[in-house]
């Protein structure tokens, strides 16, 4: 139906404050360039936000002023953006929500997401196996958010049921930040004389964790598992680094996938599948090449 009306697609994402969101911003911009070539009828407006309320403002502006008819949004947080997105949907904007599901699914037309519980579960399964089913693990969590809760909860649940002899010593916040992870790891090392493995749960934090271990010259830690698929980490997996035997994906490129799916469907006036889940995959030496994007900042 909408062949002649131009497709104005607003893309709203959190601003780049750490590696993963940096990757999101990068992939969104790349995809926009790409898609604009492929679909001359489509126009993309990308906005980044520093907080949920700023993001709510932004999508309001995208509608009132930029007159978007499709919104692809990676919400800063789920709950606070549910109403604003629902509001836009009510005004007739086609809403595609990425990664962080809204608390009310009727507020969205389509959902493209990574798999947070899967992320935790895959990590737990790999670590349990790698450790031979026993040993001590410390966890670095991200920021206090629903995502983080889902990952950690499912990690702990999987570990408990499948590898009950793996002991989780502590889980403190590293804020998805290299420096904070460095400090927390330093203190873990002071506190626990024997740690077998670290679930850094994020590749940025893994960087800090590795440095802290290196500095303390501790040899008890056999490996560190990060997550998200940062290129440096994938490279180390590819190169067979002993400390980084694997990674678990949570690709920031999912924003690009969502934009592609949305543009393809909307330019033909079609609907997207209600839900597209991009699974979290275990990256090992064997398949690492597939996940390596040397040009991405992340």
């Amino acid at each position, binding site marked *: 139906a909408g062949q002649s009306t131009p497709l104005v697609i607003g893309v709203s994402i959190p601003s780049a404050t750490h590696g993963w969101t940096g990757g999101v911003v990068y992939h969104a911009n790349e995809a926009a360039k790409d898609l604009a070539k492929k679909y001359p009828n489509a126009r993309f407006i990308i906005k980044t936000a520093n907080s949920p309320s700023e993001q709510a403002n932004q999508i309001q502006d995208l509608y*009132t002023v930029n007159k978007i008819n499709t919104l692809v949004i990676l919400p800063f947080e789920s*709950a*606070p953006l549910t109403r604003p997105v629902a509001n836009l949907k009510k005004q007739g904007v086609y809403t595609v929500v990425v990664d962080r599901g809204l608390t009310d699914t009727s507020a969205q037309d389509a959902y493209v997401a990574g798999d947070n519980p899967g992320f935790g579960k895959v990590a737990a399964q790999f670590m349990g196996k790698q450790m031979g089913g026993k040993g001590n693990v410390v966890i670095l969590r991200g920021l*206090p958010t629903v995502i983080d809760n889902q990952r950690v909860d499912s990690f702990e649940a999987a570990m408990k049921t499948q590898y009950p002899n793996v002991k989780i010593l502590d889980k403190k916040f590293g804020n998805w930040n290299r420096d904070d992870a460095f400090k927390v790891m330093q203190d873990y090392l002071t506190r626990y004389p024997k740690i077998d493995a670290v679930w850094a749960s994020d590749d940025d934090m893994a960087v800090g964790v590795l440095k802290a271990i290196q500095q303390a010259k501790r040899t008890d830690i056999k490996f560190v598992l990060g997550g998200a698929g940062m290129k440096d980490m994938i490279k180390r997996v590819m190169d067979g680094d002993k400390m980084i035997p694997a990674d678990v994906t949570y690709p920031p490129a999912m924003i690009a996938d969502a934009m592609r799916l949305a543009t393809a469907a909307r330019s033909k006036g079609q609907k997207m599948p209600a839900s597209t889940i991009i699974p979290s995959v275990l990256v090992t030496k064997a398949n690492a090449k597939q996940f390596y994007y040397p040009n991405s900042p992340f």
Partner: protein
Amino acid sequence: MSTPTSEAVRPAKRPNILARIGALGPLLGLILLAILATSLNSDFASISNVSNVLTRAAFTGIIAVGMTFVIVSGGIDLSVGSLAALTAGSMILIMNSLIPTLGSGTSTILVGMLIALAIGALAGLAHGTLIARGRIEPFIVTLGTLGLFRSVLTYLSNGGAISLNDTLSEKYSPVYYGSVLGVPIPILVFALVALLGGLLLNRTRYGRYVQAIGSNEQVARYAAIDVTRIKILTYVLLGVCVAIATILYVPRLGSASPSTGLLWELEAIAAVIIGGTALKGGSGRIWGTVVGAILLVTIENVLNLTNLFSVYLNAAVQGVVIIIVAFLQRGRRT
């Protein structure tokens, strides 16, 4: 005493034009920005956009009005964003828990609002008491509670979000989304708060005392002003303003999370200072604060409406504009 005055006292003269332009600096900045924005995107001047901008300015604007009192009295409050988050969270939890007894109607919402006001006032009372009676630097006290309040909210929400019950949310939503005679309610409340704030600061004893304390606390003490009480009251007032802003904010997003109100303190303080109130206290103006708050939101809005700069540079543009506006009204130092 009845010596005849040797020199007839001349009537008060208006300050000269340059000084006036200086005083109007932020307004000038806002007008320039609006002209620029309209030329970049004519939709800027649309009623719906202007109303969006003003509605958004309402939150930090209302807080900034309270902050003006604190700053004029010589204090500072870094915790307002955290307090807003904590207030929103507690308010939602309590309203949700009241549904079984009070039902999901107006009475629950009213109780929620009262509780929000009470929390704000109590937090202000605690700040004021520690600062004025405990004689601790306001910067430190409110830096401490900045962490404290947000932490407690994170604890209450278990790191996630606290969401308002759907039915309640529906009932409550007109407080943010509704309008009276075409004017959105948050704008009306903002205008009311600003008006009352302006009257209070410039036309009441309390406001005069606040200025006197900020200008010279010692002199105020010697003039039999109850410095402790007035200072505590400024923090209570600010707490109440935070509560009012929160009451308007909750229906907008229907939830509170550890990131609610993040950096509002910087925005509120910036609005006050851009508006021409000196950080060291002694004097200030509410209308300046209002203009400052609107200006800050407008910069963001203009950035959203246009694609002049890389998204990475948003904060850079904001920073530069803020400095330029401050420059326009600078130098009333003697």
